[in-house]
């Protein structure tokens, strides 16, 4: 909490007109939100926009509260989406953020808000992760835009463009009365660069100056007879207004010096195609027109939109050691017409018509399926009677990530350039040697000292070894603990999305002999599992054992607070144990995860109580990453002022370890590694404990619970010991030689 962005980065949010800010994509967006006079913020964390939630929370005390901006840490995306209803009644701007699959959770509330339409601008930042680098399913946001009738914006990988488009998004929203979906791709949200600031605008009404009265507009209620009126409005008034705004403000950029072929790209694929075309010698960069594209666009009007040559400035030839090739100086521009779409929905027919005119063949560089851009462009082409060819699949893969390498290759084929003139994606010749080495994939793992690992890995493995006759499946929900899939592969059914996984095994609880052991963390518990899974299970008296991993933080997305967090102004408002008992749960116990033997015993006890319906075991231990960061600092401070402080680590005696690796099987801690034995008679790898050990104690309790070898020891150093301790120690040293 309050740590993703250091204070000096947050401080930059105060900068004004013309000043330069160095930031990542998410902080840049927050800056643009402040420049747009946003009044309220919210959302639910998830990569690649978890940094945006962090930015909201990190800036809350220092920047946002003083400006009067309200920040909500919504318990899920539906709550965040519903909050946007405020802008239906009030002329205030709001923004929320969630990851791509969050739209699924928010969809119901969002559909209603979109039907009513908004007066204050509303922008939803959706973490678009088509490459699924941190998402479990592949999904695109664009179809939701069609579904709701909400405009979808998609920026370049250029922070100045990101902030420019953010500012425009609010105006677009107010112009067409629709919430706007703003895509934040992984490589935009996690991108770092510079941007030019504008002045912050305080919201019209704020925490310091709240609205005295809310407007009541009865016809905004989505109920017949208004429902059909909303539908008519949406498609006959709001969408045309959106198109007009998009065209007038030059949101889509056209670079066209004439030619029979053209390329249409979207979002950051502009950067990707640009680099590809540079490699293919199809772009030259003109000196003297040192105006970044976004600034040109900002000044452009609807009338002088085309042709708009790209004018990216040439770097000054002044860096003596610049390790790169310097090609021949010529005048510059794109060698092939290019249309860069940044409003993906709605497409403006006139813009497309103008671009297609006079061309024979147009390549649509679109990421993934469903390829709604390609289809829409084909439809427009047919509408206007254009007879050229729209191509995509022949040149580019229609699924999977479009990297610079992939796109460059596709463009090369499209342009029928010979590969000889440029060096494109030519992998180095591979010696057979490198292929022979075992470059194994690296899966993520639970951190050293993680309180979740002992429960779901160690305890369940021991339980399984103890009771080979017990038949069960381990139902994992979404959180760090989903990494259990790497270790419990044979026992785990597919995940069905945030908080829904226990519900996914309801039928199997009745129709199969396998019992369910359900694993859920506190963040997911509060976000969705409580209502969707737990109440469903209690209501049906589902025969299941539920392990709730209460670690006080939404850890997987970077330690955002959740209702179980023990610090902050909302701490203690909600309590898992009391909630479950209040709901009528008959068996609720709390256990310390590091006492593995105890956890196993309680799982055994819960296992037997089939008649009780769901049995709940709350495994309570703070996220070690968060805890050790805090405690390390505290310990250091105490040590410096001369207070007694202990520091402990686990170790393995190298001559005692017999290289059997059972400890790795039951406790796959990242701080346990292997090394050759110092005993030259042994060929086995022995286990060693790395310095990253945080003294969680698990090694000791596993050694007991799983009856492992006696190699493990715990060594504790005492800083600033008392005189008595020192005396004892000296005595022992003298007598025992320790």
């Amino acid at each position, binding site marked *: 909490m309050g740590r993703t962005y250091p204070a000096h980065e947050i401080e930059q949010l105060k900068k004004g007109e013309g000043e330069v800010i160095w930031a990542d994509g998410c902080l840049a967006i927050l800056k643009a939100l402040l420049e747009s006079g946003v009044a309220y913020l919210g959302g639910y964390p998830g990569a690649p926009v978890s940094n945006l939630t962090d930015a909201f929370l990190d800036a809350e005390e220092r920047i946002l509260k003083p400006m009067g901006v309200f920040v909500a840490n919504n318990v899920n995306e539906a709550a965040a989406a519903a909050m946007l209803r405020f802008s239906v009644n009030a002329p205030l701007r709001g923004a929320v953020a969630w990851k791509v699959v969050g739209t699924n959770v928010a969809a119901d509330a969002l559909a209603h808000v979109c039907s009513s339409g908004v007066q204050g601008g509303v922008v939803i930042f959706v973490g678009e992760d088509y490459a699924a*680098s941190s998402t479990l399913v592949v999904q695109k946001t664009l179809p939701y835009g069609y579904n709701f009738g909400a405009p979808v914006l998609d920026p370049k990988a250029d922070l100045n463009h990101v902030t420019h488009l953010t500012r425009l998004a609010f105006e677009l929203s107010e112009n067409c009365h629709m919430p706007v979906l703003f895509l934040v791709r992984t490589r935009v949200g996690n991108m770092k660069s510079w941007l030019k600031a504008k002045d912050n605008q305080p919201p019209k009404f704020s925490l310091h100056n709240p609205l005295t009265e809310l407007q009541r507009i009865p016809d905004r209620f989505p109920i017949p007879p208004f429902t059909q009126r909303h539908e008519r409005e949406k498609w006959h008034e709001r969408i045309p207004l959106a198109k007009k705004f998009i065209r007038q403000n030059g949101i889509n950029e056209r670079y066209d010096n004439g030619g029979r072929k053209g390329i249409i790209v979207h979002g950051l694929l502009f950067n990707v195609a640009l680099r590809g075309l540079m490699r293919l010698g199809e772009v030259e960069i003109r000196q003297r027109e040192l105006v970044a594209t976004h600034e040109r666009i900002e000044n452009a009007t609807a009338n002088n939109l085309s042709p708009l040559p790209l004018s990216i400035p040439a770097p000054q030839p002044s860096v003596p050691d610049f390790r790169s090739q310097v090609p021949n100086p010529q005048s510059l521009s794109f060698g092939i017409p290019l249309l860069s779409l940044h409003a993906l929905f709605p497409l403006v027919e006139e813009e497309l018509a103008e671009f297609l005119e006079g061309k024979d063949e147009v390549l649509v560089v679109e990421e993934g399926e469903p390829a709604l851009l390609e289809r829409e462009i084909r439809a427009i082409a047919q509408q206007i009677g254009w007879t050229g060819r729209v191509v995509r699949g022949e040149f580019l893969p229609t699924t999977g990530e479009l990297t610079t390498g992939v796109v460059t290759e596709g463009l090369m084929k499209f342009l029928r350039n010979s590969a000889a003139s440029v060096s494109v994606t030519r992998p180095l010749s591979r010696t057979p040697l490198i292929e022979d080495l075992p470059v194994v994939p690296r899966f993520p793992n639970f951190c050293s000292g993680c309180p979740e690992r002992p429960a779901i890995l160690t305890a369940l493995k021991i339980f399984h*070894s103890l009771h080979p006759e017990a038949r069960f499946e381990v139902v994992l929900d979404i959180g760090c603990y989903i990494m259990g899939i790497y270790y419990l592969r044979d026992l785990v059914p597919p995940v069905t999305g945030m908080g829904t996984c226990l519900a996914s095994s309801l039928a199997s609880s009745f129709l199969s002999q396998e019992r369910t052991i359900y694993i859920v963390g506190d963040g997911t518990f509060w976000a969705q599992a409580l209502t969707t899974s737990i109440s469903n299970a209690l209501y049906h008296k589902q025969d299941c054992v539920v392990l709730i991993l209460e670690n006080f933080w939404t850890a997987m997305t970077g330690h955002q607070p959740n209702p179980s967090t023990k610090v902050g102004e909302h701490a203690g408002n909600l309590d898992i144990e009391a909630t479950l008992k209040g709901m009528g749960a008959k068996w609720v116990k709390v256990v310390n995860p590091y006492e593995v033997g105890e956890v196993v015993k309680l799982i055994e006890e819960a296992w037997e109580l089939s008649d009780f319906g769901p049995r709940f075991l709350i495994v309570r231990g703070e996220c070690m990453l968060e805890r050790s960061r805090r405690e390390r600092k505290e310990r250091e401070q105490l040590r410096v002022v001369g207070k007694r402080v202990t520091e402990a680590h686990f170790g393995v005696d190298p001559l005692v370890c017999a290289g059997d690796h059972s400890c790795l099987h039951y406790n796959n801690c990242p701080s346990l590694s292997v090394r050759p034995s110092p005993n030259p008679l042994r060929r086995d790898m022995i286990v060693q404990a790395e310095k990253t050990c945080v003294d969680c104690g698990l090694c000791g309790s596993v050694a007991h619970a799983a009856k492992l070898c006696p190699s*493990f020891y715990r060594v504790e150093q*005492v800083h600033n010991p008392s005189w008595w301790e020192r005396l004892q120690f000296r005595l022992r040293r003298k007598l025992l030689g320790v």
Partner: protein
Amino acid sequence: MSKKLAQRKRGSGDGDGEMVKLTTPITVLVAAVGGQGGQLFSQWLFDAAKEAGFYPTGVGLPGLSQREGATVYYLEFFAEPEATALFSPFPEKGKVQVLIGLELLELLRAVREGYLAEDGVIIGSTHRVLTTDEKLPIWGNFVTSEQVLPILRQRSKQCVAFDAVQAAKLAGLSELAANAILFGALASSGALPFPVEAFRRAIEHYGIAVSFNLRAFEFGSRYREWLPQLQKLDDFATQEWESLPEPKLPTELQRELEALSIDDELAKILRHAAKWLCHYQDARYFARYLDCVRAIYERENGQGTKEGLLVTKEVARILATRMAYEDAIRVAQLKTQRQRFERLKKEHQIGNETVYRVVDFFSPDWDELTGLLPFGGARGEGEGTRNEESELPELPSQSEELKRASLQMKIETSSLTGYLLLKVLQLLKPLRPYSRRFKREWAAINEWIEAVKQAIDKDYDLAFLVARSGELVRGYGRTRRKTLALWRTFAAFLNALEKRGMKVSEVVDLGEQFLSLAMSGPEGAEKAWLFAKERLGN
């Protein structure tokens, strides 16, 4: 940003701003393991570029960082601010000019992906963070720097690679210093056209543990001076082995040892065995060892094989560890010896005056506790007893094993009572040869030695296989019982195959598969057992 630096750099150029040039950026890829600090490293790099007057743009794929996954950061440094609009959010194959790896496997992965330009530079740590799959095999199977360094050198114009974690130890700093050390090496390597001062300021600017990281940075920037020393860095565990007392053998025995030292390799093994077994029991025990080895040697030599006494050497190596089986007496001895405390203090950087305590975790079961008593049969329960019908003995049931009663003890070995308790246990050492455990271990050893002898007469490959199989038996308590049963399964498996009239070469082939399955990890025994059962079709 440092305007002065930028100006100085600019001033040294040709100054002709009128020339029109298209310039591609400097491209850098940083590969790391989540939790290693790849993010901080990239941030420093980003800031260093700024300090040097460049305009950096970068993208990180932290993924599930801090959780051991692979992470990648890609940066481009432009000469002019507006040019950052040219940023490619993906690294291009064959175009990365500087490749930085905080971990060897990730570095190798990036090289294998083909990102590095032909004239690219590699700056990397050869430190290994092992993946789960690499840790499990008993005999290990992971990429090492010896394998990778030649490839890295061949693929790059310049390659600066060393174990940055070891370097931190050499510098007397904690492991957290590894990144800043590598950053220092990058700064002084000349791979990037930034003055060293720019790198230094980047660390100062970001403000995380500045004085610590600067110390590490300065050390790293002098890497050329200390790289040779890095190889010679002490390994504390090896030191503990080396500081075990050298054996004092009676002259007669010493002569016997020398007589059997046919070549250097065998001589080395015998010397190690003498040290280990005398430390374990006494010289008489070593004499018994020597008799066993000699018997094998004579048998092997008698066959006239010219393979360099492979069987004798394997038996000699493995027999020493089998004879020094780890019982309570042995554990007490290793846990209380002076060398242990010396190693432990060095390993955990405990000063001579620092108050510390050591707690050991024991969970001996009934068998282990009563194994020291002088009665009981030569074969224990669950050590590979076989019923009449099946050809293979059963492995002990793991659930039964886990349910067995055991004494769960935490003993503070550095305390008076804990230490003395363990010392008292060592008084039993002379009684060891009369214990039940001794009887049982020796029964198993004799079975193995006998099997090796028989195999020598049949086939050399078979003999080599059976000799190595002795290493299947390992560990304490339930692992010991399981692996004893496993070895007996192995022997029964080979016998059953031979009985079916299978060719020896095929038997050896299946036996090798059994062995490698058994050694594949902590669940290897079960896998090997199932393999044998399937092969025999029962």
